[in-house]
């Protein structure tokens, strides 16, 4: 019994080590190998700094939009019985299943030069594809399900008795939402926001199709990693990857803390 238990543990942890832990530790090692000064220089070149801020900017637009929509949509799914609700629920998951390349191409064919809306927008002087709005749209697309998926089950779990009580006692819908609903779902909401942020920062495929990859203009951090790699600037690619891996680890830490708080609350 103990022998088989140990064997199971060994196999499971060994698999995790080979697939997960060793590679990520290795990339951090590779990042720091040239020494901190070289790494710092590599992630503070004008292109890298611009890529960093563009990534932050895109996330700063996409994540609040995702959160707002996610909250409205979760309320609809958990609290109303509108016909067509189940169709909506099924469609929410779509971005999880669609390949990033397909997402990018779809946006390209809608807003691009030959797309449905492209010519009209071009006449109005709005450029979406090969420009920041396209990157934002791609990011919003891929992030769409995260908040809904985390908040809906929590809303269903807590039920609506407290909300009804508040309404009976004369609270307005907004007061009920702010004082009852929002505190009840806050950890689920926080978890969804963290997941969406991580995805927004790390999105590559969809952004890769719509950005045009102009260095210093439409190049995000993940695109910078790819470009440096294909230009044989391995140390530079590792440095940018290390930065992204550090963000990922911070995300993981946030997720763990939120999970623990959510379990306690």
């Amino acid at each position, binding site marked *: 019994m103990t022998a*088989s*238990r140990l064997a199971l543990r060994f*196999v*499971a*942890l060994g*698999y*995790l080590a080979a*697939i*997960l*832990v*060793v*590679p990520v530790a290795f*990339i951090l090692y590779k990042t720091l190998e040239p020494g901190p000064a070289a790494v710092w220089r590599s992630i503070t070149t004008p292109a890298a700094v611009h890529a960093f801020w563009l990534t932050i900017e895109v996330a700063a637009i996409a994540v609040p939009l995702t959160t707002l929509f996610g909250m409205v949509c979760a*309320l*609809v799914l958990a*609290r*109303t*019985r*509108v016909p*067509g609700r189940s169709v*909506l629920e*099924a*469609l929410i998951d*779509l*971005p999880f*299943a*669609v*390949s*990033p*390349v397909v*997402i*990018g*191409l*779809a946006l*390209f*064919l*809608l807003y691009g030069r*030959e797309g*449905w809306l492209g010519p009209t927008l071009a006449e109005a002087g709005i450029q979406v594809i090969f420009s920041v709005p396209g990157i934002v749209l791609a990011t919003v697309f891929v992030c*769409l399900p995260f908040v809904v998926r985390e908040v809906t089950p929590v809303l*269903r779990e*807590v039920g*609506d008795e407290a*909300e009804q009580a508040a309404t009976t006692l004369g609270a307005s819908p907004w007061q009920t939402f702010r004082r009852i609903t929002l505190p009840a779902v806050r950890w689920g909401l926080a978890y969804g926001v963290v*997941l969406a942020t991580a995805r927004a920062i*790390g*999105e*590559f*495929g969809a952004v*890769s199709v719509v950005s045009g990859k102009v260095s210093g203009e439409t190049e995000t951090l993940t695109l910078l*990693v*790819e470009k440096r790699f294909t230009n044989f600037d391995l140390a530079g690619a*590792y440095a940018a*990857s290390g930065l992204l*891996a550090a963000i*990922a*680890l911070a995300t*993981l830490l946030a*997720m*763990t803390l939120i999970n623990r708080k959510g379990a306690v609350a």
Partner: protein
Amino acid sequence: MGTTAVTVPTRRRARPTRRLGGAGALGFGISTLWLSVIVLLPLAALVDRSLHDGLGEFWRDVTARQAVAALRFTILISLAVAVINAVMGVLIAWVLVRDEFPGRRVVNALIDLPFALPTVVAGLTLLALYGDAVAYTKWAVLLALLFVTLPFVVRSVQPVLLALDREMEDAAASLGARPATVFRRIVLPNLTGAIVSGAALAFARAVGEFGSVVLISGNKPFDTQVTAVYAYKQVESDNATGAAAVSVTLLALSLGVLVALRVFERWATRHDR
């Protein structure tokens, strides 16, 4: 066994009793509109473009030799990945739930790493580590896909295993069942639903995966080229219509998996409703 398997009692979800009236309809309208503009409209444009030159041309794009080879490789390797991670996922979930060892919570947190790490970084990482031995081979693609789909089965099986009543297993053991028998006859039937949905999501993800594969696969036609990368290369060589046709097949495939999964879940929970 089959129908008599004892399933974990799932908590009945609170039925939404209140009608939000106008506010509910407004919310529904906003949600539907947002979803349509962000998701459905672009996908409609994609489907429209794929049929731009007629059905015959669409069929020719989809059945081009290179496209078929890429699609066959994508499906086969995604199946392999789903199966491997189904087995390893159950094993990992079991160890995380039933075993005690120092650092278990850290390991538990690390499971989500592939969701947090950008895919292109994952690809670069595997390339750096396993470098010359596997780079630009089918093994490299397999490794990358195993990495990005690792959390699905673990995270779907783990809560079910946590909620599983140990008394059933104790009863079976006291009646003389060996640990392997207990696992096969008691634990596994209870986990089947979670394993299938986790593996299906892993499959859907693997089929569309791009970022982790693009650097490490070498994109060799008829060898390591996956459909997502093939479609990307078609876009780059200015063949948007061909790329759209291939993308539509990829879209249909992942939609099919999602629908099948939903049907399966309804079937599996038919006794709870």
